[in-house]
């Protein structure tokens, strides 16, 4: 069973990459060059490699966020908005109180951002358990609202008048996480992300909360009979999910941007869902899955620099992953094909 799902993941990734190659081959005037840049580009120098790892940091946390909700069999489709508004709140507080010591303010802001995203997601969880509102739809609708509200602040009240784009003012650079592989963007936030993932792994594996979440996700009715407060567990899982999305947002700001920029996080939430699916909700596997997704993104970016393709190709490959990753019939389909070929 475990091998089967591993094989399915492998096939999904191969098919998705194959689709990427086909799309590039059809659209690029120099496909060999484009494909080479796509696959090798992220490893070609320290700068691209570091940037790829930097790009994986928010995906680790959104991947974790999605997987916790999935574990409780809840769909949190509002990751994008939860992340965005939490980053905005965190940036604002940092900017407002930048006279304080980073050692006091940064941990405080991380907690605030966690609960900003967490409470928003928990609200969808609450609506699900108390009012029977589909959390998949409510979290998404709230997310749309939050994205627009965030844009509103960045275009108006919280806009840096000197910035050429819709962005907040920079906060003091002493608040920025240190860089690991200069000149790339890779920053020490990666240790925070990995640390959180390890903690969550143990929480899910060893603690009562983790056990309750997993059991609720496996079988709600059984859990109810076993005396697990299913409603509360769902809300808590959503709270954690939104909280990690919030952390993903603010850590990216502290690590790379130093200010809030309109639309800076587009795709972090959706890719997080894909990361969780590839990792099959296993917290530790979220790390390689996030790096893989960052690799796709970076490969497309590098290839668009050195050839004539557009980076949106990454989205098509990612969609292919989404399409196939849960397809349980994929293996038997391939087996049937093989038999048909060998028989015919």
């Amino acid at each position, binding site marked *: 069973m475990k091998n089967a799902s591993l094989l399915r993941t492998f096939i999904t990734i191969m098919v998705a990459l194959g689709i990427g190659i086909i799309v590039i081959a059809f659209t690029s005037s120099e496909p060999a060059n484009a494909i080479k840049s796509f696959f090798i580009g992220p490893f070609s120098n320290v700068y691209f490699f570091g940037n790829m790892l930097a790009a994986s940091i928010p995906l680790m946390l959104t991947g974790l966020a999605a997987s916790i909700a999935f574990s409780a069999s809840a769909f949190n489709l509002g990751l994008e908005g939860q992340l965005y508004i939490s980053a905005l709140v965190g940036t604002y507080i940092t900017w407002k109180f930048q006279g304080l010591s980073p050692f006091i303010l940064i941990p405080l802001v991380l907690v605030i951002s966690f609960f900003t995203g967490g409470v928003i997601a928990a609200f969808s969880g609450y609506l699900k358990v108390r009012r029977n509102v589909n959390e*998949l739809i409510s979290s998404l609708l709230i997310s*749309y609202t939050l994205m627009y509200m965030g844009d509103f602040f960045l275009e108006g009240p919280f806009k840096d008048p000197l910035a050429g784009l819709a962005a907040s003012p920079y906060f003091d650079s002493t608040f920025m996480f240190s860089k690991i592989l200069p000149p790339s963007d890779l920053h020490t936030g990666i240790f925070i992300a990995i640390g959180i993932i390890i903690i969550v792994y143990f929480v899910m594996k060893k603690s009562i909360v983790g056990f309750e979440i997993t059991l609720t996700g496996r079988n709600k009715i059984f859990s109810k009979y076993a005396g697990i407060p299913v409603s509360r567990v769902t809300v808590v899982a959503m709270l954690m999910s939104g909280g990690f999305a919030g952390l993903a947002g603010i850590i990216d700001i502290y690590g790379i941007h130093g200010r809030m920029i309109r639309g800076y996080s587009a795709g972090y939430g959706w890719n997080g869902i894909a990361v969780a699916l590839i990792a099959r909700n296993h917290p530790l596997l979220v790390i390689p899955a996030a790096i893989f997704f960052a690799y796709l993104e970076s490969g497309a970016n590098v290839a668009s620099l050195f050839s004539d393709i557009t980076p949106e190709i990454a*989205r098509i490959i990612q969609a292919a992953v989404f399409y196939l990753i849960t397809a349980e019939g994929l293996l038997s389909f391939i087996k049937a094909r093989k038999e048909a070929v060998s028989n015919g």
Partner: protein
Amino acid sequence: MDDFMHTTITMMTPILLAALGGLFTELSGMLNIGLEGMMLSSAFLSVYVASISNNLLIGIAAGLGLSIILALIMAYLSLNLKANVFIVGLATNLFASGLTVFLLYTLCNSKGTVFFPKAPKLDMIEIPVIHNIPILGKIISGYNILDYLAIVLVFVCFYIIFKTPYGYHLRAVGKDSQTAVSVGISVYKHRMIAFVVSGLFAGLGGASLSLPLQTFVGGMTNGRGWIALVAVVLGRGNPIGVLGASIVFGIASALSNTLQASTDISPKLLLTVPFLVTLAVMIIYSTKRSNEDA
């Protein structure tokens, strides 16, 4: 006021069309969250093909074709390969957003807004006699063919769902698929058809977004597929109910538009109105339902 009513109907059309499509998959027992992506892909292809062929019908047919292909992919993966229907729906949305930007870039060398002046305009139909009645004339007359088609299709769907054997079977599949199987109704076949119908309607919805403006903007569906999904849930399996919900969301969108034109409230804040109204309606409705259950 009559202008406002007019905007309401115009804003309602894409939502209503997509929601009618979503109704079929809902009745077959599946929540189709790929509506957004199907709409978006058709919004692009219909206006693009209408422009290069200089023919509206060919344009619409192309848009519907692409939307139905996306529906078939969804159906195949979820029904044949047993993939999770929500995840496959997300895949559809993600794929459509990538595909449209990619095609826009490859075919039109742009990533933002593209105006297609060569695409034939959708004519406003002025109904004789009624058009000249004050107020009422403006509310009932002067829409494009897709706006009228959407209303007609509500009743066509009503007829199909409640008066034809196909409709009975479809509802049986959604209510209790095992019983349906035991009386010889094919769950697979009805779900497959439901997906194709949802692709058809969502495609029409997408075309009704881009064609009247002769314009495509990246991501122009902007959540309408999701709002349509809520209209499906609120419609309780009845096209008339879906129409009612769509009217409410049309009003919310019209309100957002009208306020943007007439006040200096930030447009970004006003854009949240349709989503907040949709959410509020969903919450109010759900409370009511749990009361009824109790």
